[in-house]
């Protein structure tokens, strides 16, 4: 049992009792939504370190996201897509996939919930739809393989599937992908995240590499503006990288367990780290799940020009 050093951040009380599949900061407050393999979705208020709400689902919850401060969406291994309303503690089913649903995102641009599932489809849902799964589903889009990760930015949707496929959609025309790509990494895609500036996305693989891609394929757009980003690996480390300068800016001290998820708060001041064994080595004994929220110092994330070594902190 290794103790994380104090700079690891504040550990949240009442963490989930089984693996954390994802955690997200709200866009509007310092609420953190956490989905877990213990079949629950939890809402934490980070500032008070308290558990604000808890929803029990029929199976492991594989992903969650906010809609607004009062509601969010969760998906999981019971194949269902749910909307959860925090204050009231109520939930309703927007619809279902045929196999576990791995990812969920909410598109403010389209006003739709987008889910990706191991049934090889991406489905779009209208959360305002009349009751009944039939009415809420807006569309279903077949993917070449099981969906492993999704990311939205603006009107773009990036879908990463098994077999290293990447489909890029324009939400306004989902009839077919805008681009069909193959991951340039040689190993299984782990995660995809779009750049906040909407120019591209980062793709990581189980090998431990991250590829930076751009939507626009023209030469001019390439090699520009990667920005800084954080990655967390099964080694328990969180790294902050400067994409432009291609340097690692910071590495936080090692966390007790694999980094299952990361989320920056809306102002970038906080970073929530889910330290939770991600089953990369199968069933084995592991450290208990923990959620850390740390302050992000500017110095840790500000890009540094080349050649200057980092002063020892």
């Amino acid at each position: 049992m290794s103790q994380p050093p104090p700079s690891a951040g504040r550990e949240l009380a009442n963490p989930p009792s089984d693996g954390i599949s994802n955690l997200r900061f709200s866009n509007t407050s310092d609420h953190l939504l956490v989905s877990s393999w213990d079949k629950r979705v939890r809402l934490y208020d980070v500032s008070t370190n308290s558990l604000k709400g808890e929803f029990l689902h029929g199976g492991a919850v594989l992903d969650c996201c906010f809609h607004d401060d009062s509601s969010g969406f969760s998906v999981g291994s019971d194949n269902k897509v749910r909307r959860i309303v925090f204050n009231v503690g109520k939930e309703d089913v927007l619809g279902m996939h045929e196999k576990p649903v791995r990812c969920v995102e909410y598109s403010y641009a389209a006003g739709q919930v987008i889910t990706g599932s191991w049934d090889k489809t991406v489905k779009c849902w209208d959360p305002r739809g009349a009751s009944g799964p039939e009415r809420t589903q807006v569309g279903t889009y077949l993917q070449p393989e099981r969906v492993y990760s999704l990311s939205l930015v603006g009107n773009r949707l990036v879908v990463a599937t098994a077999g290293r496929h990447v489909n890029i959609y324009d939400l306004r025309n989902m009839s077919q992908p805008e681009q069909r790509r193959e991951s340039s990494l040689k190993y299984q895609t782990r995660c995809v995240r779009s750049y906040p500036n909407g120019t591209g996305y980062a793709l990581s693989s189980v090998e431990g590499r991250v590829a930076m891609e751009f939507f626009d394929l023209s030469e001019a757009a390439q090699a520009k503006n990667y920005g800084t980003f954080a990655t967390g690996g099964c080694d328990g480390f969180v790294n902050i990288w400067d994409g432009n300068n291609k340097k690692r800016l910071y590495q936080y001290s090692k966390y007790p367990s694999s980094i299952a998820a990361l989320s920056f708060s809306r102002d970038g001041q906080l970073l929530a780290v889910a330290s939770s064994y991600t089953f990369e080595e199968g069933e084995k004994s592991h450290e208990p799940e923990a959620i850390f929220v740390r302050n992000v110092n500017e110095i840790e994330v500000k890009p540094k020009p080349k050649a200057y070594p980092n002063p020892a902190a």
Partner: protein
Amino acid sequence: MAKDPILQVETTCGSLLYELQVIIWDEVGETETDRDKMLLELERECLEVYRRKVDQANRCRAQLRQAIADAEAELAAICSAMGERPVHNTRQSDQSLGSLKQELGTILPELEEMQKRKTERRNQFLFVLEEIENITNDIKGQGELVLPKPPIDETDLSLRKLEELHCHLQALEKEKSDRVETIRKHLCTLYSHCSVLGMDFNEVVSQVNPTLTDPEGPRSLSDHTIDTLDAAVQKLREVKIQRMQKLQDLATTMLELWNLMDTPIEEQQEYQHITCNIAASEHEITQANSLSQDFIKYVEAEVVRLGEVKASKMKELVMKKRSELEEICRKTHMLPVSDSAMDQTIVAIESGIVDATLVLEHLEQHISKVKEEALSRKEILEKVEKWLSACDEESWLEEYNRDDNRYNAGRGAHLTLKRAEKARNLVNKLPVMVEALASKTIVWEQEKGIEFLYDGIRLLSMLEEYNLLRQEREEEHRRQRDHKKLQGQLIAEQEALYGSKPSPSKPLGGKKAPRMSTGGAATSRRLSLGAGMHQTPKPNKKADQRQAEGALSTGRRGLDVAGLPSRKQSMDPCEQLQSPLTRKPFSPISTTVVASKANIATPQQLVPSSKSNAVNEISSFATPVKNNNIIKNLEEEKIMMMMQTPKNVAAMIPIPSTPATISVPMQTAPTPLNNNNNARFLPEKAEVIEYSFEERRLAFMLQSESPIHV
């Protein structure tokens, strides 16, 4: 004074004479002779006259007498003819009643009377005879035979005779009426028959005799007519019987067919009125048109239709039996009957050449024979099935053993572990199984005197082949083991030479050997260059993580290498004896120092360290992989290393560079045995299905939740 006429006459004569004699003659003065002559003449003339008158009177008298006699005779005749006595029998007595005239006077009326009677009687006779004639004519036939009128026997006009004739007449009348009746009856019968047979009554009757058609007019009552009529009736009766029998046969056939084909009752209802008469006798069938040609045709058509249905059902039945036969053959792995023969038979049935029932019998026999044989094969077949499934498990086990990832707790791993254990048990029992099966088969073959064929192949040959394969396989395994040993020795030698340990022998913390197969399109079959780098995509968590990006990158990029997972690694965690051909991920190939740019002191320390375990993990970092610019990346990586805070580089970080020489001989992965001799082995698959961590985790979770353990 009344003068007596005669006196008168005499007077007259006298006077005359006087006159003559005295007066005349005297006057005349006739001579005496003349006078005498004239007086003689006169006398003579007078005598003549007298004589004439007397003759006349005689004649009258004679006539009278004659008349009387005639009358009497006639009377007698009449009386005798009539058989009656005359009223008066005047002739018997001599006593004359009076003068002739009187007599005549009495007879004549009698005669008249009798004549009247006779005439009457005669008329009666005539009447009767006419009647008789009529009737006879009627009887004999109108216009056929007109008999001449029989003459009246005048001599017999007696009542008796009349009586006779009357009787005769009556008889004839009776006969006539009999005939009429007969004819009527016949006609009735005929009418009935015609009605039943659907024939035109009038036509039939007119053929017998045209007169019969008219119920009002005179009819022929002749024998001929009656005979003909009778014959017609008989004939129609025959026809009726014939048709009835035919209909009854048809009905019987219909019943049989219904019975055979389980025809529903609604269909049968329609023909109920026929089948109910199936045992009727001729006279019971009286319904109009129930035996008409049309009707019989109608029934016939139905029977034909039913027959066709039966034929097709027979055909179906034949097909069914045939497929039954095939099924039995298939189940017991016997070769089935040749199809062409059966097809021909089917065609023959359809065209009616061959009777389906015969074929069915044949098939039944065949089926029972086959069943017998199947029964005798049963025991051996069961053993064969066991053997075959054991072979399947054997080949599955082979493949399983080659799979590096088999200890991953992915989907169903729990189940496959159990299956592997069972399979191993089964494989151990295989030789005994095969032996037992072979000996049983031999015994069977001896008993039956024929070979035991399995789908056309001799079972013993199959078993032999299998044994051969097994031997070959075992030899192959042995060879491989030897080869590996050799390899191990070679690498150990190099170790001694170059001081580098190509691969750590034991990972920390009971970690298992790397297991995750390369994702997606990266197959695991490519040869590895550069000292057998075993790349795993999985970022190792703890001690064993190597930072071998540099070497990795160069090695890979230049030569497009992917690590080849060793197939022969034993999965016992305790053993941890890796094949020297494989490497732990990110293990350094060599730990030569980074070149000039390195300001870092720490890397130097790392060089001699061959303890891979001592090295802390280095975070895996990303390099832009867009450009396959080897040099650039290497530079960057070095920079990255430099940028690391001491915190993170607490431990020694080996920074391998591209080894100057690749001294380790190129490694070839042990190719898996080519086991396609045994047809049951599946062909080698190049891809392995990838799963994400979450998928595996979910599978594991579901397993442990499920109460059912295989």
